[in-house]
């Protein structure tokens, strides 16, 4: 370890803060603005003379009340949670297998298989929902959250496979070869040696998949029509924007509440993520 002077450490901290501050502002401003809007009375919201960035005439809960009393918000949240959990679990398991196979097992055509998996990413999603909705209808899943559980893995698996492939490659081959020489099978090696070492990568894949599911919009919008089967993101935007009428306050309230599970998931894993990083950084 190279000892650094106190001055150098302070300088580097100041450098980090100074660089991050403008960005943190850039990042947080829209959220702040949404929070302010969600607690504002309509009278103030539409008042030309009011100041948009804070609340002058008292915060109100009306917009939140409307969300819980007049819409299926709770059901949407439940649907989102269910879809995201099932699709993420399935996708990450499938991707671990595929990623390991592509990263470690040498076979003819490993490269082309890898490319083939990603080709599916190349066809822009723009129009894919049209024929995909036919597939969903054939499977008898129209207007059901099962349709989303089946279709989400199609974009999660290529992504997670690539991510995990990168992770598996960072694990030194020698570790695995030791296990193999000791008589373990490939599957045992994967399960007992590789997976424990790839935990940060797997967590990363879970986080990303969960987020992608939770935030998916096009499929959730086109495959589902009943309000009771909608996901949170679609429910909030489709039921609170009616034609040209925007329920701005409730829209912001819904947008904020709908994202809480994501934030919770991140906070839960944050410790792990950061402590993993610190474990590395402290040594250096």
């Amino acid at each position, binding site marked *: 370890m190279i000892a650094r002077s106190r001055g150098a450490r302070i300088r580097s901290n100041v450098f980090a803060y100074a660089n991050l501050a403008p960005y943190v502002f850039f990042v947080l401003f829209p*959220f702040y603005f949404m929070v302010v809007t969600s607690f504002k009375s309509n009278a103030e919201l539409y008042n030309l003379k009011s100041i948009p*960035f804070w609340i002058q005439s008292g915060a109100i809960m009306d917009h939140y009340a409307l969300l819980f009393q007049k819409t299926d918000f709770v059901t949407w949240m439940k649907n989102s949670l269910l879809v995201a959990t099932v699709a993420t679990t399935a996708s990450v398991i499938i991707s671990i297998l*595929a990623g390991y196979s592509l990263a470690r097992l040498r076979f003819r055509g490993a490269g082309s298989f890898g490319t083939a998996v990603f080709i599916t990413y190349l066809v*822009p999603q723009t*129009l894919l929902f049209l024929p995909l909705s036919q597939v969903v209808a054939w499977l008898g899943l129209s207007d059901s959250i099962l349709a989303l559980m089946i279709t989400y893995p199609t974009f999660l698996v290529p992504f997670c496979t*690539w991510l995990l492939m990168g992770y598996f490659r960072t694990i030194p081959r020698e570790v695995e070869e030791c296990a193999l020489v000791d008589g373990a099978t490939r599957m045992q090696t994967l399960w007992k040696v590789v997976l424990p070492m790839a935990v940060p990568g797997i967590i990363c894949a879970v986080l990303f998949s969960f987020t992608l599911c939770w935030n998916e919009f096009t499929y959730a919008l086109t495959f589902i029509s009943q309000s009771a089967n909608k996901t949170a993101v679609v429910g909030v935007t489709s039921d609170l924007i009616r034609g040209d009428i925007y329920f701005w306050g409730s829209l912001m309230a819904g947008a904020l509440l709908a*994202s809480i599970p994501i934030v919770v998931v991140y906070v839960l894993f944050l410790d792990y*993520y950061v402590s993993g990083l610190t474990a590395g950084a402290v040594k250096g």
Partner: protein
Amino acid sequence: MSSRARVTARRRREVGLAYLLLAPTLLLLGGVLAYPLGWEVWTSFTSLSPRQEGGTAFVGLENYRRHLEDPQFWIAATVTVVHAVVTTVAKLALGLGFALLLARPFRGRALVFLAVFLPWAYPASVSVIGWYWTLSPPITTAYSVFMGTLKYAVDGALGTGAWAFLSVTLFNIWRGSSFIGVLLLAGINAVPPELFEYATLESKSAWQRFWVVTVPLLRPFLALGVFLSLTTGFADLANVWMLTAGRIVFPIIGTHAYWLAIKAGEFGSASALSLMLVPFLLAALLVLFRLFDPPEREAA
């Protein structure tokens, strides 16, 4: 059994296992995606439209030819490429910056980390409303007068729709740099710290260390980031649609195709248009795959 035969047998088992592990992926992609992909390719050769009278005709490459002759296509193509390249470069630069800053411990890091994470973690379809609200305030307040003036100044200088396009780009960078930052942070996390330590001792300057050590070590993650950034940049639909309230003045290929299919009902033409991106993306993918998996390692 000779040792050579044993090795061969093990190799064969391994190849079998490799296919077995890939099977679920292939089953899923083949079962769910094969038809939609095929449909899109086939449709691009036909005149399919829900509004036409009579049957759907096979028109060969007609749809493609018409796009190539259409000046609108070239405008959309230019805008798309500029949009994708600008956003990708900005996202990589910002993302790499965060990843490197956040890789070192400092007080309050967990909070900064969460803040950096938020734009990506937050549902785009919802945060885009926040942006719309911020950049193009729809109801009249003191704030919207100010933003309106700004919008007209930008549109006046760069042409109508410039503000909308700028807000799309800004939103894309806002969201994407967060994603890439976290992705690269995971990458840094995956590199054994000893490698970085060794590199610190060996290299002369921080700049040199960055190019000779950090970038090559992060290569797979950089490649994945660039690839995803390019595909979303090319096909970014929902966000453009929302931020510009459907009034698209600077069309990118994705929105143009969506417009053709949904508003104009020309499925054939729209499919052709969105498929015209594929060769470019494929080229990008192949280059990135090369970076990700250099041939000299494959030979081992």
